[in-house]
């Protein structure tokens, strides 16, 4: 995460890297650039609490749905991390709304990556249906890099498509490093500690 104390919005600006999440009560802007990753923006306008998380579900999910799927559980865990932080600062998921972005893929991506992207898109819709959480905006798929500016107090999101640096995108490189590490440890679950 990069913090810029000033920005064109006259608020602090936080730029998230792939795999990061950030929840806050501060009047600020949370930003990122997305290729294949998804960004989930959650916000409670009444309480002025919001957060963004950037992640990927590392694989394709089976036909039985996300409840008993090991790969999907990773994605659920990622969103849970963001939700946990939001709840800690006073949020309540019953009043949260969502905006979701990303899961685009570069033009030269393999058919396997295309399947992963489609699976990610299915995952995110199924997840928010189960959570019974309103998705106010979804902007997924496509072959471009999206830059987001998310205002956690209002839930407003500005989305631009980047025009430059297509061939040598540093964000795509950062994403690839994150995606590779997620695929390497996709069966990694949390620790189990017994007190006896």
């Amino acid at each position: 995460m990069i913090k810029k104390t000033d920005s064109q919005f006259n608020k602090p600006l936080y730029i998230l890297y792939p795999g990061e999440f950030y929840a806050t009560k501060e009047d600020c802007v949370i930003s990122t650039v997305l290729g294949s990753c998804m960004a989930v923006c959650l916000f409670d306008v009444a309480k002025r609490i919001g957060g963004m998380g950037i992640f990927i579900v590392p694989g394709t999910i089976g036909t039985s749905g996300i409840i008993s799927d090991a790969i999907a559980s990773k994605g659920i865990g990622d969103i849970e991390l963001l939700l946990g932080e939001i709840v800690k600062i006073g949020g309540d998921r019953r009043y949260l709304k969502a905006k979701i972005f990303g899961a685009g893929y570069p033009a030269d991506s393999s058919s396997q990556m295309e399947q992963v992207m489609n699976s990610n898109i299915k995952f995110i819709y199924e997840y928010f249906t189960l959570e019974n959480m309103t998705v106010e905006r979804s902007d997924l798929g496509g072959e471009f890099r999206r830059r987001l500016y998310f205002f956690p107090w209002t839930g407003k999101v500005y989305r631009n498509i980047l025009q430059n640096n297509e061939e040598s995108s540093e964000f795509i490189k950062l994403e690839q490093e994150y995606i590779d590490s997620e695929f390497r440890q996709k069966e990694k679950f949390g620790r189990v500690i017994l007190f006896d």
Partner: protein
Amino acid sequence: MKHILIIDDSPTIRISVEHALKSLGHAMVCAENGRDALGKIDALIAQGHDIALCVLDVNMPEMDGISFLKEFRSRDKFTPVLILTTESEDDKIKEGRSHGASGWIIKPFKPDELLSVAKRFLK
């Protein structure tokens, strides 16, 4: 009848836990925060049921997992309580232990693993 109580503010997690534990054959009751859970427990006991196991999240609105645990332990010293959370900090885990949690499972969880831990505490 012995019931398993699942306390988590996420419907997705509640359904996942129910799914993981259904082979145990216990009735399952869900609550979406600590306060809700205390109400459900009172209702179950009033109907003559017992709680066999609690699966408990930490970060929840209204009443969080640790506050629930303190309250629950003041009434019930023995029923196992398994914490299931994204919280992985040692201080939090110690706090859970000191207030009488039986175990701490960090999300994302493996359904088989949750099942075998649950079986162990239900013996």
